């Protein structure tokens, strides 16, 4: 800025200087020269006139005197006669003797005035020389030569020129100073504004211009500030909106994927990344093989590269912008999942794909299917027996075979009982699971509970020489819980133990206190249960040995009921077993519960 200003000033100055100097040169020179010229000519003519008024013979005598009066100090005059010889003169000239007359003399003698500048001596000052013819009665009788030293004029010109030069230099210095100061003084405000504006353009939207209210640029500065603050506000709003959307995407459980028209990933939320690309295990060598290549930065890669699933590609092909297409896919890996995938296309190109985890839903559906299948199966057998018995009964009655008839009635009765227990168990179970089981809390003595239960099974146990032992000290605290629930739990466990133990085995019930819970172990010395069955033991209808269980009249629901009742009481049920030694079922019940609500499932206890 300053340079430009200076250059402008400087060029202006130089141009004017050049013009001035030319002016000086020409005008001054002309004026000065004109003056000198005129003076010279005047002198020459005057002298010529004088000479013309005197006859030639008398020139020598009379004119020498007159010369003094005509003569000016700086003008030298000489007179030449018609043949070109000098007659007289004031100027100092080298002795002419018989020099041939010069051209100018000749010209003057021919009647022509001339005017020239000569350098008499090399490097000496110039002389202005004029030649004027002398006319007598229209006859050229001689010539006058007048000369004047031009040096003074030249000097004057020279010094004038020098003065001009000095003036120009001063002006240039002024110009430089002016250029330097100018921007600051005159346009300081503009520079500030400029720098503020450029800082804003580079991203600093917090800066504001500083200006005097009366500065002519104030309105501009104000507009600039307003622009910056509005821009900052808009950016802030956009940023917080983007952050909000980002947070939503991050927290969502569903997976969200946005693709460009040629299936490159634009956006993928963390939920989906975790499903499609689970973190490599800690000891895997693979995680280090991709050094410098962030495995998780998948934006820009195509869907196929990141997740090689044949059907997804087909799904995208089928996508359109006016309806959603769905597909259920399986994801392999450490945790196989089933995902419901929905895809739509954007009109301007690109895809939006949403993934919902339906693994749990499908699992429950298949459990339900199995359950229904199982129940139907369980119901079918007794129903079939009842039907066949009731079909045959009329025949035996009519045939008068009382014994056979009674047998069939017995079959009907037993199977009806079986149906009834099954239905009741199912109802209980569904009530417990629906959390509709109301606990009627009362204080119970644990030893008495156990004794009561044992009483139910004593006959059966004795028949098979199974000994029932109770290790339930009287010092155990009172148990506050639903009587029927705890009785059912204990009874089911003891029933199982007695049922599945070989003859002569021992069933031992132990009571103890664990923190705020009562712990009851029902241990049998039977054959034990294989490890792979243990996690599934409490599932409905789960049987280790199908045939054996049904033969003993089990409904398959006993343990399931135990588990759910235990949980309804706020506790848990678990099992442990050693092959060949025996099995121990453990229930843990909180000693007191003031509310009737069941506790949440305690999964960590279920494997004892």
């Amino acid at each position: 800025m300053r340079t430009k200003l200076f250059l402008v000033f400087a060029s202006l100055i130089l141009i004017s200087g050049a013009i001035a100097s030319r002016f000086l040169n020409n005008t001054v020179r002309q004026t000065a020269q004109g003056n000198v010229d005129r003076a010279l000519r005047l002198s020459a003519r005057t002298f010529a006139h004088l000479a013309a008024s005197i006859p030639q013979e008398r020139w020598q005598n009379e004119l020498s005197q007159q010369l003094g009066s005509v003569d000016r100090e700086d003008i030298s005059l000489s007179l030449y006669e018609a043949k070109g010889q000098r007659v007289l003169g004031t100027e100092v000239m080298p002795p002419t003797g018989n020099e041939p007359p010069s051209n100018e003399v000749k010209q003057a003698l021919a009647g022509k005035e001339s005017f020239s500048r000569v350098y008499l001596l090399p490097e000496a000052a110039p002389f202005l020389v004029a030649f004027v013819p002398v006319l007598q009665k229209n006859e050229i009788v001689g010539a006058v030569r007048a000369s004047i030293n031009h040096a003074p004029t030249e000097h004057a010109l020279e010094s004038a020129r020098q003065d001009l030069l000095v003036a120009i230099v001063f002006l240039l210095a002024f110009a430089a100073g002016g250029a330097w100061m100018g921007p600051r003084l005159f346009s300081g405000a503009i520079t500030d504004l400029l720098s503020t504006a450029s800082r804003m353009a580079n991203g600093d939207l917090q800066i504001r211009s500083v200006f005097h209210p009366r500065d002519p640029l104030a309105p501009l500065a104000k507009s600039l500030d307003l622009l910056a603050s509005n821009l900052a506000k808009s950016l802030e709003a956009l940023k917080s909106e983007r952050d909000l959307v980002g947070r939503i995407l991050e927290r969502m459980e569903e997976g969200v994927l946005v693709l460009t028209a040629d299936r490159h990933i634009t956006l993928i939320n963390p939920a989906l990344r975790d499903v499609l690309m689970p973190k490599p295990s800690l000891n895997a060598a693979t995680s280090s093989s991709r050094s410098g290549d962030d495995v998780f930065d998948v934006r820009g890669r195509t869907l196929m590269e990141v997740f090689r699933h044949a059907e997804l590609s087909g799904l995208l092909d089928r996508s359109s912008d006016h309806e959603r297409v769905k597909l259920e896919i399986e994801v392999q890996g450490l945790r196989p999942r089933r995902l419901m995938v929905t895809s739509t296309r954007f009109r301007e190109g690109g895809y939006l794909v949403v993934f919902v985890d339906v693994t749990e839903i499908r699992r429950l559906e298949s459990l339900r299917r199995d359950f229904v299948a199982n129940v139907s199966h369980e119901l079918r057998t007794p129903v079939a027996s009842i039907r066949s018995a009731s079909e045959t009964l009329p025949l035996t009655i009519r045939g008068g075979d009382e014994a056979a008839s009674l047998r069939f009635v017995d079959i009907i009765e037993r199977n009806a009982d079986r149906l009834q227990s099954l239905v009741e168990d199912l109802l209980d179970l569904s009530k417990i699971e629906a959390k509709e089981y109301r606990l009627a809390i009362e204080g119970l003595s644990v030893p008495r509970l156990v004794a009561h239960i044992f009483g139910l099974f004593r006959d059966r146990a004795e028949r098979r020489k199974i000994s029932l032992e109770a290790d339930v000290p009287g010092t155990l605290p009172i148990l506050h819980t639903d009587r029927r629930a705890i009785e059912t739990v204990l009874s089911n466990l003891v029933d199982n133990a007695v049922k599945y133990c070989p003859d002569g085995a021992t069933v031992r019930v132990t009571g103890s206190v664990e923190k705020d819970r009562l712990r009851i172990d029902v241990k049998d010395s039977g054959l034990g249960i294989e490890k792979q069955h243990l996690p599934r033991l409490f599932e409905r209808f789960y049987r280790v040995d199908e045939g054996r269980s049904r033969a003993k009249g089990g409904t398959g629901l006993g343990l399931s009921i135990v588990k759910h009742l235990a949980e309804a009481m706020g506790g848990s049920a678990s099992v442990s077993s050693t092959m060949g030694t025996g099995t121990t079922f453990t229930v843990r019940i909180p000693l007191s519960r003031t509310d009737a609500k069941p506790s949440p499932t305690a999964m960590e206890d279920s494997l004892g």
Partner: protein
Amino acid sequence: MSAVRSFAVNRRHTSREYEDELQQLRELVLLMGAKVEQLIKSSIDALLTRNTELAKKMIVADREVNRLELSIDELCLHILARRQPVASDLRLITITMKLVTDLERIGDLGVNISERVIELNEEPPLKPYVDIPKMAEMAMGMVHDALDAFVAGDDSQAEDIIARDETVDAYYHQIFRELLTYMMEDAKNIGRATRLQSIAKYLERVGDHATNLAEMVIFAVKGKDPRHKGSRSGPATGE
């Protein structure tokens, strides 16, 4: 690291069209790989769940795989003719054509497995399948990892994949021996046993093809052909 990068298709080609063609080629190969993986997996699932419907579906699905092979070969020839690639590009194209051949064979093996499954489902299962699923999982894992390596342009796992083929072969021999005993025990078992043995054989071949895929990846990345190490030296050296 630079070896990995030079194989990936994130390079600048003077022509945007060329770049797109290479990208399209890659996508097609990955799609074919995904379909083939699914084919094998579903065939084995059909065996384990005795699902004839699924097996039939897989036989039909192979047609898609074959169509992909044709498309890919066509695209490769197009690129060779029009772009006349050199150096690593040329390697990429030729390797792709080979990869695709192996993938197509794997697809065919899946069809073969499905056909045996349909036959097997006409009779009750001979025995609980323990080794075949394990063998299948290993072979499928090899295919999956080889394709992953292709995607990433990373040959660091390739040697491991090739090593796993020995285990797959070992499984085959074990299964074969076991099935022999069933056949010797009772002539009625022979039908089912031979079909199971066929399935095991197909799985063993899947493993071999997966090895080829891995070798191709090594070639693509390193520029050196790792195949047939034993036969490289001629008879003169007595190797």
